[in-house]
């Protein structure tokens, strides 16, 4: 059970260049809007055509530019949950789900599968509702029911939560995560939200301007993003150019400081990242004098912005985020950061 993708396509301002393999479980394509994530899904589904490359699912070639293979979407058996769910507005919930059962010719079997799916997706009583009469969550479940009843060989989800209100999102995340675990096959999910990626997936592939920057286990990616785009996408607020000065020491010219690292620094280092949560008043390592700039309050946390003493004047202030209750009475004159919390970016 595996999906192999190796495609390129000219897309106006950039070139889509995606190579990856996905196995059972949830894999996330994480990237900013318009970076080619959804386009990659559409190529796998057969809705869009790459210029060159090869797509293979469970040993079946879906697309191969050299062998001139390009299966129509109807023959790929790939489930695709669209961002807006794409429920057919003129059909009821029941008719929508029946569309997914078009391959099943046996009447009784069709009805049985339909009933099972309606129960599984908790759509009982809504069979004769039109999509416009459903809540966002019910629409999502109907769209999933329609796809799952079609017994796809893999599942693709395009920003599955973006059409939902924020308060619904978290409840549905848990629901969908459990459902996907039960599904048991390859699931490819596209999102620009690091929280969703972290909540839902076992593996993440970061995409930047059409280029796929490699795939990592989700937790590993957040602990060590490895590249500037990956650091940005995983929510790292402080990123500055840096160069290696020793096997465990880097210089950050715009901040006017040197930092000790726990990881060995490679020669081709381009930048370092520090997550806003990881500054610590009591840490003695990497400790430098700072001055207060301004702050922004959130419901439970506060963002304090500061500058290092010798920081370049045109560089943005550094973000320090901490729990409101842990905020020191007086703004500290110095702050430190543990060497293990310096992200090395290449």
């Amino acid at each position, binding site marked *: 059970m595996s999906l192999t993708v190796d495609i390129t396509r000219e897309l106006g301002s950039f070139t889509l260049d995606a190579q990856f393999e996905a196995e059972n479980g949830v894999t996330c394509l994480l990237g900013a809007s318009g970076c080619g994530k959804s386009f990659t899904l559409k190529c796998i589904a057969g809705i869009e055509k790459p210029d060159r490359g090869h797509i293979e699912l469970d040993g079946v070639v879906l697309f191969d530019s050299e062998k001139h293979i390009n299966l129509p979407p109807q023959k790929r058996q790939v489930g695709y949950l669209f961002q807006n769910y794409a429920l057919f507005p003129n059909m009821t919930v029941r008719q929508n789900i029946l*569309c997914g059962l078009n391959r099943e010719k046996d009447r009784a079997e069709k009805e049985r599968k339909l009933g099972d799916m309606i129960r599984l997706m908790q759509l009982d009583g809504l069979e004769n509702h039109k999509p*416009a009469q459903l809540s966002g969550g019910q629409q999502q479940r109907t769209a999933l029911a329609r796809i799952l009843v*079609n017994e796809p060989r893999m599942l693709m989800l395009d920003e599955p939560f973006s059409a939902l209100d924020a308060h619904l999102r978290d409840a549905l995340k848990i629901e969908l995560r459990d459902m996907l675990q039960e599904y048991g096959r390859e699931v490819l999910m596209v999102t620009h939200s690091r929280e969703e990626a972290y909540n839902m997936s076992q593996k993440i592939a970061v995409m930047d301007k059409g280029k796929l920057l490699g795939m990592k286990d989700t937790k590993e990616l957040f602990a060590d993003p490895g590249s500037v785009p990956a650091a940005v996408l995983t929510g790292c607020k402080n990123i500055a150019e840096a160069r290696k000065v020793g096997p465990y020491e880097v210089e950050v010219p715009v901040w006017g400081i040197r930092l000790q690292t726990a990881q060995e620094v490679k020669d081709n280092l381009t930048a370092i990242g520090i997550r806003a949560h990881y500054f610590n008043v009591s840490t003695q390592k990497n400790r430098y004098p700072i001055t207060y700039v301004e702050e922004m309050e959130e419901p439970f946390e506060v963002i304090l912005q500061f500058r290092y003493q010798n920081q370049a004047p045109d560089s943005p202030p550094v973000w320090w985020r901490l729990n409101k209750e842990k905020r020191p009475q007086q703004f500290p004159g110095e702050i430190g950061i543990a060497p293990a919390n310096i992200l090395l970016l290449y």
Partner: protein
Amino acid sequence: MIDLDWYPLWNSLRIAAISCVLVFFFGIFFAYYAARLPRVLKGILDVILTLPMVLPPTVCGYFLLLVFGVKRPVGMFLLQYGIKFVMTWYGGILAASVVAFPLMYRTARGAFESFDKTLAYSGQTLGLSNTYIFWRIRMPACRQGILAGTVLAFARALGEYGATSMLIGYTPGRTATISTTVYQLWRTNDEKGAMFWVLINLAISTVVLLTVNMLEARQKKAVKA
């Protein structure tokens, strides 16, 4: 009233109805396929298909005579099979269809262009055939626009005068339509008769326009929902 000749009403209605059916299918066909053509080709085709809407109908009639006139190659060829569009009632279908076509074509194209493509894509990934998607998903979703186009095309075909009078002229009981009858009666100083047909035409057009407005109101409501 008893000896009134109802032929123009009957002739106008059948010409309009048959043209409307023809224009419905051709309009949808071209609207659907024009949308998929490369841009340059689409632009050229668009101009050609819309021209009858902006040209004076008499000019359309002139072109039709150029092609289907009994002394022209196409006209002569058709005559061998007994088909003659000049001075026959069914020539009126040709004239009305050509003039009404752009209304259907443009309204249908507008409806197709605002159609949410992901609906078709999701149908394809579910394994539904393209024919099924077209008739059961795309057409119902564009229903209001297509209906409005059909009604407009019907109204235009019913009121067609210029191209019709050029191609089939006015022969009472054979090619007379409401609009050519009004002109003929007025020309021969039968003002009462002309007024009668004007009122009939007014009544039909009012019903048609009310229908269009109703459809548009429903479409707006649907968009809001």
